[in-house]
C-alpha cells in the first residue's frame, strides 16, 4: 500500500533547540488524533477514528510511515489523494499542535503551498526615495535662492560704491581736490601765516 502511505519526518531539535520534547508514544497518539481530526474536517463525516490511523517504521530520526484505513469498507486504506487534501487543508493546525513548522514537520509527498511575503501597498523604497528627493530639492532651492539674494545685495553694494567713486572722480578731475577748497584751513599762504591770529575764525 505504498501508494496510500505517507512518510513523515520530524525535526524537533532543529525547531525547538533546548525546549525540544522527546518523541514518545503520547506524541504518536497526538499525531494519530490530528490526522483523524484532519480527515473528519475534510470529509465532514465522523467515521474516522484514531484507531484508523496506523503508524509504522518509527525510527530515531524521527520518521515514520502512516496510513489511514477506512473501517466502513473492510480494512482498505483511504486513497492517498484524499489524505493529502485533508492534510493540506489543516496543515497549520497540525503544525501548531506540535509547535513545528512546514520545514520541521515534513510530509514527504505533500508539497506545501508557500505563503507570499507581506507586501505593503506602497513599496517601502518609494517612500524612502521620496524623502531623500525632497531633502535634496529643498537644499538646491535654498542654495539658489541664497545665491540670488547675495547677488542682489552685491549689486546694490556695487552700485553704491560706483556712485561714490564717481563723486570722488569728479572732484579729482578738476585737478584741485574739492576737499582742499572746502577745508576750513585752505592753502596756507606763507605771507599771511604769521598774522593768522588777526583773522576772525570762520
Amino acid at each position, binding site marked *: 500500500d505504498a501508494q496510500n502511505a505517507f512518510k513523515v519526518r520530524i525535526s524537533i531539535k532543529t525547531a525547538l533547540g533546548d525546549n525540544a520534547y522527546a518523541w514518545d508514544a503520547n506524541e504518536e497518539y497526538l499525531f494519530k488524533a490530528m490526522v483523524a481530526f484532519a480527515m473528519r474536517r475534510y470529509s465532514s463525516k465522523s467515521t474516522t477514528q484514531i484507531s484508523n490511523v496506523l503508524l509504522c517504521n518509527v525510527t530515531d530520526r524521527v520518521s515514520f510511515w502512516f496510513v489511514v484505513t477506512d473501517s466502513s469498507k473492510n480494512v482498505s486504506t483511504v486513497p492517498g489523494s484524499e489524505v493529502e487534501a485533508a492534510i493540506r487543508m489543516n496543515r497549520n493546525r497540525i503544525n501548531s499542535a506540535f509547535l513545528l513548522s512546514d520545514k520541521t514537520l515534513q510530509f514527504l509527498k505533500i508539497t506545501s503551498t*508557500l505563503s507570499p511575503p507581506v507586501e505593503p501597498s506602497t513599496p517601502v523604497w518609494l517612500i524612502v526615495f521620496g524623502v531623500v528627493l525632497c531633502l535634496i530639492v529643498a537644499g538646491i532651492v535654498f542654495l539658489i535662492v541664497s545665491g540670488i539674494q547675495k547677488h542682489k545685495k552685491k549689486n546694490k553694494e556695487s552700485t553704491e560704491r560706483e556712485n561714490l567713486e564717481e563723486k570722488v572722480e569728479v572732484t579729482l578731475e578738476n585737478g584741485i581736490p574739492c576737499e582742499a577748497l572746502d577745508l576750513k584751513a585752505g592753502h596756507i599762504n606763507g605771507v599771511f601765516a604769521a598774522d593768522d591770529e588777526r583773522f576772525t575764525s570762520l
Partner: protein
Amino acid sequence: LSATPEIPKEDGRPKWDNKFQYILSCIGFAVGLGNVWRFPYLCQIHGGGAFLIPYFIALLFEGIPLLHLELALGQCLRKGSIGAWNTISPYLGGVGVGSWVVSVLVSLYYNTVLTWVMWYFINSFQEPLPWSVCPLNENRTGFNEECYESTAVNYFWYRKTLNITPDIAESGTLQWWLILCLATCWAVVYLCTIRGIETTGKAIYVTAIFPYLVLTIFLIQGLTLPGATDGLIYLFTPNLNTLKNPRVWLDAATQIFFSLSLAFGGLIAFASYNPTKNDCEKDAVTVAIVNSMTSLYASIPVFSVLGFKATTAYWDCLDRNILSIINEFDLPEESIMRQNYTSWISFLNSSYPEKIAGLKLKSCNLQEFLDQSVSGTGLAFIVFTQAIILMPGSQAWAILFFIMLFSLGLSSMFGNIEGVFTPLLELQIIPKSAPKELLSGIICLISFLIALCFTLRSGSYWIDIFDRYAGSVPLLVIAFFEVIGVVYVYKIKRFSKDVEWMTGRKLNLYWHIMWRFISPLLLLTVFMAFVTLQMQKPPSYTAWNPKYEGFPMKEEKVYPPWVQAICVLLAVLPCVCVPLVALFHLVKQKRRSKDPSFVPQEVFSCQGANS
C-alpha cells in the same frame, strides 16, 4: 551671480576656506570605490602580503612623482587643465583637452554606479531585506526558477536592479526605477557642486570623513565575526612566488595610477585654487600616503567579512550534507555534528558506499570558499550583501555600508566634476554675467540625459566597457604627455625654480630623477604592457543568461564588431586630442607668422604671474 567672495587677490579666483579643506578634497578624490573593492581583490589574487612590495614600489616611483607634478602645475599656473596646458605651450593644449574628455566620460558612468548604490540604500529600509528571500513563482509552490538556481542575492542584483539582458546587443528598455535613482544622484551632485569649490568644500567634510568612521565600525564588527581570522590570514599570508609574474607588477602600477585619480585634470583644478606660496610637495606626499593607507585599512574589514562569509558557506555546506545523511539513514538529530562529520563520513563510506554515492554530497572545502575572489560591483552588491544578511541587525549594516560607498563615490565625483567645470568656466562658455549655478546645472543636466543610456537593460555591460576602455588607457597616455610636457617642453629647470619659489626650498634630487627619467619610462612600460595584454585575446565579456546550460555561471561572449569599434573610439578619443590640438595650433601659427603684426607669445613663469 558669480558669488566669488571678496578677496584681496587681483584675479578674483575662488579659493579654499582653509588648507584642510583642500587636502581633504584631494584625499576624497583619490580615495574612492576602488580602494574598497579593487585593492583587497588584487591583494588576494596576487599573493596576499607580497603584493604590498610592488604596490609600494609603484607608489614611490610613479604615484608620488606624478601627484606632485599635477599639484605643483595647478598651483603655479592657477588654471584648470585646459588653461594650464595652453599656458605651458599651445601645442600641449591637447593634453588638457584630453583630460577634460576623460573626466566627462568617467563622470557619466561613475555616477551610474552611485545610482546602483543609492538603489540598494533605499531598499535597505525593509524587513526582511529584499535580497535575502527569493520571490515565489506563479502557482506559489516554489521559488522563482531563476532565483532558485542562482541565489537570492544574485537574483536581486541581476533581475530586480539591472533587469539585465543576456546579450549586450539587446538593449531593452529604460528601467524607470534606475532613472529615478539616477536623477536623484545627479541632483545630489548638483547640490554639492552648485558653486564649485565653495559648496564642495563644505560637503567634503562629510563625504571624506564619514567613510573612515564606517570602515572603523565595520572593522570592529568584522573582527568579532566567526571566521574573520581565517579571512585575514588568507589575505595577508605572503606568497612571494607571485612576484615572479609580471602581471602582478603591472596590476600594482595600474592600481596606484588609477587609485590616485591622476590625469583627470581634477587635481590640477583643485590645486589651482590654492595660494601660490603653498608647500605642494608635502601635500602630494600626504595625499598619496593617506590613499594607500586607506586601501590597506579598508581591506581589513573587507576580508574579515569575506572570511565570515566563506566560513558560513562552509558550515552551510556541511549542514546540508549532514541533513541528507541523517535523512537517508534515519539517524537521530544532532548525532552528526560538524566536528565529527569527517569521521562519520569515513565510517559510512566504508559500510554503505552505494548509499553515500547516491546522495551526491558536495565536497565542502573552506579553502575553496575563501578562493572565490570577486572585485568591483560583484564584491559590493553580491558578496557583501550576502554577508550582511547573515549579520544580526542587517538593515543597519546595509544602510551604513551603502552610505559609505555613496560618500566614497561622491567625493570622487566632486573631483571629476571639478575637472569638467573649471576649464569650462575659464573658457567662458557662458557669459561672465551668468551665474556659476547655471553652468553647473547645465553640466549636470546634460550628463544626466546622456547617462540615461546606462539605465537600459544592457547598461551594466556598457559601464564595464567605459570602465575598461575610457578609464584606463587614455589616462596612461595623458599622464605620459604631462610628464614629458613639463620636463622637456616647459623645461625642468624653469619648473624646479617655480616649485622652489612655491615651497620655499630647493627641489630634492629624488624629484629630478623621477620626473626626468623614471616616471616617463615606467609609464611607457606600463602602457605597452597594458595594451599588449589587452590585445592578446579578443575583448570578451561575461553575460548573465538564465537560459545558458552552465547557469548560474556567467556565459562568456565576445563583443560584436560595432561594440568593439566603440571601445576603440573611447580609448582613442581622449588620446587623439593631443596630436589634433598640436596640429591645429601648428596650422594657426603658420598662418599667423605670415602676418607682419604678429607678436610671439610671452614666456610664462610662476613668479611672473604673481609678482
